[in-house]
């Protein structure tokens, strides 16, 4: 690896990290200003406005907000149901904010879980998500096929007691690719994915994202090969009887032989990671 390439890569990652942080800041700011009676639509608009004021003009997908049992995608059958509704926030209700802004050519795709006041059940789900973050990183480093990772996530979830039957984890996939939107020359050696593999995604970003976690999609349609080098938005989502929790953040996958270098989280300074660290 030449220093020039390494330097370019570091700059790229800085760009992605910056927009991911911005998105999480947005989530925290909006979450803090949610009040009883606010609707999902309003919460989605608050995210849009907050980010637009800070220079975001383009979206990988527009912000989502889910309240109450919609955080667990209860009874979701058609993709339209993912879009924000007039559901109002009530004390104790869980919520999830999910947004994918593009800033300076870099994309983020994040998910933030919280509740209005205390919600011990959602706290428990968030606690249990920590093991999923560790498991995914470990297995990507082991170059396990995506499908095998999915199945292990599923098994972990069953072990954690969220279901004792198959297919209970309804969220289809746990990761999808993310990239820069504007075409640019970069080192295929580092990231290893060309624009051709992204064209469809960029053209139909929202659709692609929706596909990514549509409960209608079977996990078995995944490729049987390990995640290719590139940026992966990872989004494990636990749902338990009307309460859901997730996080979403970017995992960097490279073709390095060194396990530590072969996959790593873009940023370890995120709300959910801090939360777990504080809990210890």
């Amino acid at each position, binding site marked *: 690896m030449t220093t020039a390439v390494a330097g370019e890569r570091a700059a790229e990652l800085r760009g992605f990290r910056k927009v991911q942080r911005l998105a999480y800041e947005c989530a925290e700011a909006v979450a803090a200003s949610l009040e009883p009676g606010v609707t999902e639509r309003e919460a989605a608009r608050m995210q849009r406005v907050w980010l637009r004021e800070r220079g975001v003009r383009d979206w990988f997908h527009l912000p989502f907000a889910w309240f109450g049992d919609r955080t667990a995608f209860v009874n979701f059958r058609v993709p339209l149901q993912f879009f924000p509704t007039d559901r109002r926030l009530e*004390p*104790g209700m869980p919520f999830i904010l999910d947004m994918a802004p593009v800033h300076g050519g870099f994309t983020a795709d994040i998910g933030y879980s919280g509740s209005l006041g205390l919600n*011990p*059940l959602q706290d*428990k789900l968030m606690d249990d998500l920590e093991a999923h973050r560790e498991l995914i990183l470990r297995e990507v480093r082991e170059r396990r096929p995506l499908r095998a990772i999915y199945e292990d996530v599923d098994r972990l979830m069953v072990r954690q*007691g969220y279901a*004792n*039957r*198959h*297919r209970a984890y309804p969220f289809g996939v746990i990761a999808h690719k993310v990239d820069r939107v504007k075409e640019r020359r970069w080192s295929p050696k580092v990231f290893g994915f060309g624009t051709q593999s992204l064209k469809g995604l960029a053209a139909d970003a929202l659709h692609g994202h929706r596909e990514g976690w549509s409960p209608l999609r079977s996990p078995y349609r995944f490729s049987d090969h390990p995640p290719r080098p590139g940026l992966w938005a990872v989004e494990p989502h636990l749902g*338990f*009887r009307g309460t859901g929790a997730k996080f979403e953040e970017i995992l960097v996958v490279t073709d390095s032989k060194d396990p530590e270098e072969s996959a790593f989280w873009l940023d370890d300074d995120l709300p959910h990671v801090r939360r777990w660290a504080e809990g210890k």
Partner: protein
Amino acid sequence: MLENARERRVRTGGVELCVAEVGEPGQPTVVLVHGYPDSKEVWAQVAARLADRFHVVLYDVRGHGRSTAPRPLRGGFTLEKLTDDFLAVVDAVSPDRPVHLVGHDWGSVQSWEFATVARTEGRIASFTSMSGPSLDHFGHWINTRLRRPTPRRVGQLLGQGAKSWYVYALHTPVLPELAWRGPLGKVWPRVLERFERVPGDGYPTSSLPTDAAHGAWLYRDNVRARLRRPRADAYAHAPVQLITPLGDAFLSERLYDELEQWVPQLTRRTLPARHWIPRSRPDQLAAWIGEFVTANEGGRTVTAPDGKYAERFGGQLVLVTGAGSGIGRATAYAFAESGARVIAVDRDPEGAAHTAEMSRLLGAPEAWAETVDVSDEQAMEKLADKVAAEYGVVDVLVNNAGIGLAGSFFDTTPEDWKKVLDVNLWGVIHGCRLFGKQMAERGQGGHIVNTASAAAYQPSKALPAYSTSKAAVLMLSECLRAELAGQGIGVSAICPGFVNTNITSTARFAGVDAEEEKRRQKRTARLYGLRNYPPEKVADAILRAVVRNEAVVPVTPEARGAHLLSRFTPRALRAIARLEPPL
């Protein structure tokens, strides 16, 4: 009847009221108002159960018990005068702090007046109402139905109209008084025991004939006037808890359909019982009153769990066996979401502990895990003692633990038989015997659910032992239901078909080696997975069965189908019994 009560007399508006107090005066004050034809002693059991935490105040309504009657009687019982009495009592017993008001029957009718007129504002911290609507709300309720008489509304009017026969009777002059002072007064205690299922414990007091005769004026002085011209501003200025006995012979539940419009903060509770709940269900009432008072004292708005049956199961004690997995776990969760206190029993300690932990997070005020093998008689006895001593008497018992066993009759060894009967049948017997006995001895109702199976009525050559065990559970449930009906304890047998749980992976397959057993477990698990009927739906059926007191509940279409066949074409069932299972 009221033990350790301190008595005082309060003068007001020409009468002298007899007021009794129990419990520490420093504690929050709970005022209990009795109905018709009663005296304050109707609350004896409830007061005794509240006295350790609250300053409990009871008084005889004017003209009742040892309070004096107004002269003349006519016009002496208006709601305005009753409000004067209430204010005089609370000024005497709790001059500085608002009180928590509780009313039953006419005590509740008048308490609605107290809780909705301006001059008591600030004197009432909360109001628990049972079996007595606001006459103003009732008047509006009738008017809405008269104004737009849809068939359903006319039905509701006629329904309540029929239940109000005694109100018309009480409006006839003199006759009611004669009846109460004569024969009716004598037979009344027995009527109550017989039809209202209240304990025969020396109540009603000797003042009954006069109470009943004077109390007729409660109706005559108020009912016609208020129903004809209900107040338009009868909004409650305190949080209200409405407790509705579902078997009330005198009041229809429908009366409260529009109550939210009058009460900004309403908590609803229901219980399967008849009209005189202060005497027939004192434990439950004391628990609900205590919880409501404490919540409102703490300045918390009461956020009751919003599970489907929260009105019915909130605060109740529910024990589920086999709660570490599958149907039992889903059942524990469903009760937890309805605000019940849950005891999760399983022989698998981790499974039980997890169920208890998640139950708490789902809304169970308390949840415990108990590691017990239900087939172990002594262990079950120990459990029953512990539960009674530490958690209380179980309100709903779900005998659900069970194991699977497949294989032809001649492949099934005596040990196999013993094992499956020990868990599936003896486990249920122990549960019913021990916890059912505690329920019956308490004498305040309850419910037992036994998880049988569609195999209880669908014979199969592949499941002789399992089906036998489940048929026994079904019959046991039916017999017990007959025996306990008179004590207000319901018994339901749940008969699921194929449900996607762990039972397939742990089931024993008789007559094959270990490897083949593994293979069959996997294969069955796969088939059940394809069928994919979730245990949550069985849990839902279990809660519904308790609410409706259903006897036999087939769950899943195949179980319902087989149930129909068993009744109408048992031959078809026998033909199915001969089929080779796809293993």
